[in-house]
């Protein structure tokens, strides 16, 4: 295998996107995504069984499309990479089964990697961006996760500082959208509704932000209380016979989410003395979140990095990119014995690395 610039195909099936990515070293050749989002829309959220069935149907055509776009063949690959976790177990298993068989079929090494660390690796594929500097704080926000990480080294040292105790931020957007009678997915809908609203009209709670929360949950998040507060406020208005000012509710809710995300991320930067913040995950598409993060980070002397949005949502390119970094740093492939691990800790950047020969 060419350890200098390995050609890697990455398979990502942890949630509702079937992602196939192909990279050569740090160069992105294809980022092919088939989403089953439309199939989930009428249920108001991702249905695991629907997602898993969609992965099975989308995998083969997505791999073919990615190869065609990259202008390479399967025989050219130096390695196959796959998300082992965290994510939806049944969805992950489709990718794991396919990746193992593809690797055996091609007699190619297989790298099983961590989805969350993959989100950080996405940044490497941005040709415009200067090299990722360490340590960096990473805030990953999507419909499936909300995590604050301290990255000392992408391939060897990632620490979970905090994560959501209940709903992911993206889920909170979906639930509040439904409460306001807006369709799924909630993020863009809330954004649109909030455009004409006053973000300070209603003071919604910031979860886990009290002084008493600082000891145990300084970097953790909670959005279910916020969702309930919005519901209660809406019901009280209705009980009083008042119209619901949807724009103000949406703007104030979004402000509460953005505020708590950015406040905790910058607090982590300050506490750890890290002047760098990397944003990732699908919710980063939210313009208000980006704007507030950039503005407040600048005031705090923290540099913000945001990978291209197409690499922020779940994708296979970030999985291939992480494996490519592992290969270039001399890591051995994974054994074939790993499984899907829906709660894979972020400290496990690569799963089931083979023992050194003769060890």
């Amino acid at each position: 295998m060419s350890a200098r610039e390995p050609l890697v195909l990455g398979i990502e099936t942890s949630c509702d996107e079937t992602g196939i990515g192909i990279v050569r070293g740090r160069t992105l050749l294809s980022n092919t995504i088939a989403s089953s989002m439309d199939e989930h829309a009428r249920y108001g959220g991702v249905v695991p069984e629907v997602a898993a069935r969609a992965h099975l149907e989308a995998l083969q055509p997505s791999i073919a499309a990615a190869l065609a776009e990259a202008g390479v063949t399967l025989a050219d690959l130096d390695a196959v990479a796959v998300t082992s976790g965290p994510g939806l177990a049944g969805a992950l298993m489709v990718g794991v089964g396919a990746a193992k068989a593809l690797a055996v079929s091609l007699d190619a090494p297989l790298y099983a990697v961590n989805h969350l660390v993959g989100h950080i690796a996405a940044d490497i594929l941005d040709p415009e961006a200067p090299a990722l500097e360490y340590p960096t704080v990473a805030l990953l926000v999507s419909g499936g996760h909300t995590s604050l990480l301290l990255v000392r080294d992408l391939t060897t040292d990632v620490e979970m500082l905090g994560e959501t105790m209940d709903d992911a931020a993206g889920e909170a957007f979906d639930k509040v959208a439904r409460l306001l009678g807006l369709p799924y997915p909630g993020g863009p809908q809330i954004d649109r509704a909030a455009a004409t609203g006053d973000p300070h009209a209603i003071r919604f709670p910031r979860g886990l932000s009290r002084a008493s929360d600082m000891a145990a949950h300084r970097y953790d998040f909670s959005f279910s209380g916020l969702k309930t507060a919005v519901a209660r406020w809406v019901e009280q208005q209705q009980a009083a016979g008042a119209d619901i000012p949807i724009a103000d509710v949406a703007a104030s809710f979004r402000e509460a989410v953005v505020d708590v995300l950015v406040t905790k991320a910058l607090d982590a930067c300050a506490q750890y003395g890290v002047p760098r913040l990397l944003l990732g995950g699908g919710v980063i598409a939210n313009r208000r979140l980006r704007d507030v993060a950039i503005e407040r980070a600048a005031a705090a002397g923290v540099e913000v990095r945001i990978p291209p949005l197409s690499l922020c949502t779940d994708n296979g390119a970030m999985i291939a990119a992480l494996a490519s970094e592992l290969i270039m740093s001399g890591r051995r492939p994974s054994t074939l014995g790993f499984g899907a691990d829906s709660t894979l800790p972020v400290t496990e950047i690569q799963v089931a690395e083979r023992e050194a020969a003769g060890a």
Partner: protein
Amino acid sequence: MILALDTSVGTAVAVVEEDGVVRADLASANALGHAEVIGDLLVAALGEASLGPVGTTSAPEPVVIARVAIGMGPGPFTGLRVGIAAARAFALGRGIPVVPVVSHDAFALGILLADPFADVPRFAVVTDARRREFAYTVYEGLDDDGLPVRVTQPALIPRDDLDARLAALGAERRDALAIPASMIGVAAARAVAAGREVGPHDALYLRSPDVTMPAGPKRVTP
């Protein structure tokens, strides 16, 4: 040669020659864990196949896989998908076709081939479908291509209703606790030889995904 997989019950991988000679026939003792074991089973089956036909010491032909046969179910979804995803990916990697097989057909073929001179009466292959249901398919004999004849298509039935239903169909009950991948391969070989498609292109889930339609926002104030 044909690489055959089935994960509708446990995880099973086999390699058979086009004429039905079995080169390798492996299964995992772990009834779950399909995703964990599938890779090592594939490697083991291909390795064993390279030693020649099972039970012989003749100099083996090299293993050249020309097709991948796959049990499409019925079976519990999560596990079933692992084998189908693996079979399709393996086939894609080698640029070879996939041959879908009804998993119950493989078990039926095993029964019908066990004693070629026996006159096997009509029977039903029965597998656990969870949620107090069975999946069953009724068979009677082999057709001219040597493939089991389905009297009924795979279907689900409440566990308590199965025996009455089979009595009405005049079929003996044969519970399948494992699907032999070798028989998936033999069924595929016979279908290919006859130029027939005997399995479905999509997984035989037989059940819609579990979803609850959102019932409008729940009230949070009393």
